[in-house]
């Protein structure tokens, strides 16, 4: 897979479909992930733990790739996150209310796998939605 395919599979399958079967294929064993909520984890299993936390909080969490820019070994995406807040997020219990916030991610790739992902999200907007 090239950079564009890797990022697309990461969001459309590993995230949006909660498809665990692609995780070990697309994430390197040393994958370093900094999520939009600020957590930093390592390896496919570290990412799975982050994913599971998000899934408990927002079971229908959806990543829309708004823009995707790639070059050899690098990729960047502009994202729109949506879902319904049903678990605990930013310390608040959800009531099923819709959430939506923007983000951006920067990836490095090597050997047909994602090696790092560094993600930023508009947490102030998210905070206002979960505490409002």
């Amino acid at each position, binding site marked *: 897979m090239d950079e564009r395919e890797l990022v697309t599979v990461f969001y459309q399958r590993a995230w949006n479909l909660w498809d665990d079967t692609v995780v070990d294929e697309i994430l390197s064993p040393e994958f370093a992930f900094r999520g939009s909520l600020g957590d930093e984890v390592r390896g496919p299993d570290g990412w799975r733990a982050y994913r599971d936390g998000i899934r408990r909080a927002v079971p229908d969490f959806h990543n829309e790739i708004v*823009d995707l820019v790639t070059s050899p070994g690098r990729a960047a995406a502009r994202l729109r996150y949506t879902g319904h807040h049903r678990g605990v997020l930013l310390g608040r219990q959800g009531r099923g209310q819709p959430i939506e916030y923007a983000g951006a991610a920067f990836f490095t790739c090597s050997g047909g796998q994602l090696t790092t992902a560094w993600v930023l999200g508009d947490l102030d907007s998210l905070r206002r939605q979960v505490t409002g």
Partner: protein
Amino acid sequence: MQPAALVETWFEMCRTGDESRLGDLATADYVCHGPGGTASRDGFLGWLRWYPTVFADQRVEVHDVIVSDDRVVARYTVRSTYRGGFLELPAAGQPVRETGIIIFRLVDGRVAESWYEGNDLQIAQQLGAAVVPR
């Protein structure tokens, strides 16, 4: 201007607040997008006059740049000293670590549009704001 030089000059403009550089860097109809919404060129100029006075003594580190077609992406860290004026948070010379990603769309070598995401909530926490727990 080559993309790498454009990124370097862009951050230098933001660091210094030197709005005279904007004519070379951005188109006349430049539009910027960020967590606060969308702003015109005039709106960006207002931000440019505000930013380096609030976050002073900036040290910029550009970690990565991607260039592809009409897009340039920069991932960066800016370390600075807080001088007051952000979310009405009191200033005590706090050190600030800002991280961000900016995606630029270029037309004829100048920035026509940009999208920014950063760690604004964490900056507020660095400055002592009470923010909901994780």
